[in-house]
């Protein structure tokens, strides 16, 4: 596993960076955001059969995007 110790220069560190870079000088941007990912374990296919059964386990994988 590679640990990212610094961001490449072409990467925005945080959302406010693009505002600081002048993207909203015309005032048309209402908001920015950061996407937070919560990754859990592996998932089965979300079929009707699965949804209506007890096949869900604690090992399902779900990605939850917030913000």
């Amino acid at each position, binding site marked *: 596993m590679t640990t990212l110790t610094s961001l490449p220069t072409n990467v*925005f560190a945080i*959302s406010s960076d693009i505002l600081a*870079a002048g993207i909203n000088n*015309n005032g*048309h*941007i209402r908001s920015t*955001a950061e*996407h*937070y990912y919560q990754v859990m374990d592996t998932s089965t296919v979300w079929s009707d059969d699965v949804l209506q059964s007890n096949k869900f386990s604690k090992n399902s994988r779900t990605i939850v995007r917030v913000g």
Partner: protein
Amino acid sequence: MYSSTVLVPALIGVVSAISITPPLTKPSGSRVVPRNFVSFNIEAAFLHDYYNDFSNNLVRAVANRMSLPPIIRVGGTSGDEFLIDDSQSEVKVCVSGTCGSSSASYKLGPSYFEAFKGLTSATMSFQAPMGNPINIDRSLAYVTRAWNALGNDRLAAIALGNEPNFYDTQAQYIQDALTIQGRVISALGLTGTDATRFVAGEVDSGHVNTGTSYQV
């Protein structure tokens, strides 16, 4: 101080009463949670998979418990790479990449945009595709069709591309975002506050960790 007694069901089914005394004013260090904070994201390529009664009822069940409609963000990696074919009968056809995932390019037919008429208890934001590089005509084609299907009243925001940390450079991202923003404003005839519905800079925190919840 306001004091109230609430009934708390215990695990074994016994109900017990406890007394709570919430403060009447907001503590200085706290934030006001937006009334539409509980909102959802749908990967743009799979929007039509949620155009059904089950999804509509599910979102309505949530919306009924909120004082402001939730926002459905229709966007993501696939949302930057769309092609459109008005003669195509299929909702979408995968043309390259890892088909069935967000990391693919899909060609959309007119029926794709019908899905913006679903999830009727929510507002929606959609993404102006910015590709890499951007194709203005292709982006405008998606935005105008989505806007026409959704309607101005249900439009929460138009996102300028996806997560900017995946574009080549900051300068290029900003230039492309401002270009498509100007063209969208002109094409849709947006004026006044309608022209300030844009979202940009939705940074992927998989690459950052600022510790801040979000920024408005």
